[in-house]
């Protein structure tokens, strides 16, 4: 199913960014890497903008909403996920403030940034686990052919990393291009080592 494929693809991209930040924090903490603050800020921005603008709205509209209409088995999990989607802005704001503070005070704010990041990563892990372990099996079980058709069309119409909307619309961020820039700028071995990151 295209909707499932794109959803999992997006989860992997988000997980890859989180993995990269975790790696860099570990290397910075061990004194083996000089921080690239612009890269860290760009990665945190990606975690903010991509799920908020593209990922969560598709989940809510094309998967969670129709699932509610089909069964009450998922209500508890969906209540939790939708509440988390609604709180996402406040949650990421904490991390954004921490990464900015770290850029202004590298010595004094590193630990606070590390803690904020670990909190965010732990939250996101639980969030994705709930989706993939609890909700997706119920979607597979209860969705009708019409539900799948609509979900697939909705996800295909907005497949920011590899699909039909790889080119950004006017005023939108081009997430495929941003992702490639992050990969290029991230230090080896997690990226191509072409940094420091240069914002447009």
């Amino acid at each position: 199913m295209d909707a499932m494929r794109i959803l999992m693809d997006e989860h992997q991209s988000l997980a890859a960014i989180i993995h990269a930040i975790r790696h860099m924090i570990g290397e910075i903490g061990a004194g083996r890497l000089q921080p690239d603050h612009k890269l860290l800020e760009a990665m945190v921005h990606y975690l903010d903008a991509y799920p908020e603008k593209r990922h969560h709205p598709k989940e809510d509209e094309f998967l969670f909403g129709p699932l509610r209409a089909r069964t009450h088995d998922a209500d508890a999990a969906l209540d939790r996920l939708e509440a988390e989607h609604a709180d996402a802005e406040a949650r990421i704001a904490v991390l954004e403030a921490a990464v900015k503070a770290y850029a202004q005070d590298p010595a004094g704010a590193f630990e606070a940034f590390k803690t904020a990041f670990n909190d965010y990563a732990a939250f996101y892990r639980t969030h994705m686990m709930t989706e993939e372990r609890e909700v997706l099996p119920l979607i597979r079980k209860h969705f009708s052919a019409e539900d799948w058709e609509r979900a697939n069309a909705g996800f295909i119409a907005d497949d920011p990393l590899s699909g039909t909307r790889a080119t950004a619309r006017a005023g939108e961020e081009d997430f495929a291009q941003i992702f490639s820039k992050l990969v290029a700028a991230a230090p080896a071995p997690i990226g191509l080592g072409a940094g420091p990151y240069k914002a447009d």
Partner: protein
Amino acid sequence: MTQQTQAAASNANAPSNAGARNPVLEVKDLSVSYGKVEALTNASLTVGEGQIVTVIGPNGAGKTTMLSAIMGVLGSKGRVAFDGTLEVVPEVERMVARGMNLVPEKRELFGEMSVEDNLILGAFQRYRMGKRDHAQTLEEVYALFPRLKERRDQHAGTMSGGERQMLAVGRALMAKPKLLMLDEPSLGLAPLIVREIFRIISELRRRGVSILLVEQNARAALQVADYAYVLETGQIAMQGPAHALADDPRVIEAYLGFGGKHQAMLST
């Protein structure tokens, strides 16, 4: 098991990639033995024009053996038809000349040569056949991999793992292959680079390149592929459209299980 894969799995060795139009590669009953040990048994598969077909399976299942036999690196029994012509005994040089190209697991670059020289070597066979379009192809490869252009004068041996993988794929593309075979392109690479490599693989399909992708990273492979085969202990155990296999409980449990790759990324 889904209906689609159940039907396919009951006839696992039939080359039933029915959606494949204009097959570029048709393999039938391919077997390879290392002495008395049979590493590949009657494996059959089809790659259609412009398709990404993946072969997933655990380490030691025979995936690399299969690619090597198709390419003619290893002796085999069975039939390999490439671009409409039956190859009774595939031979590497002839397969390359006919447009088959393999990016091996170990990349096999020339470390003492520059990035650009490695790329140009990829066009050698075409050059020998009188096709002198390598300068234009080089620009196409650089457009796909801007990082290679930035490092064109660098020795290949000094590059990072991700850059080396990009160079290996870029070198293969210099031959303008009809069929690109990728052996574990994600092996040893960090998740961020793996995502980028698979994005590029998708882009190659959009450009019309037919791809046979061998991968242990089943999650990533099934996301980009059109059709998939599961190879276990030298035999095709399952096959079906990639999205159907990705939804199959047996595949999910064995290869995609939660707590798999991207969850590990989040927690380690």
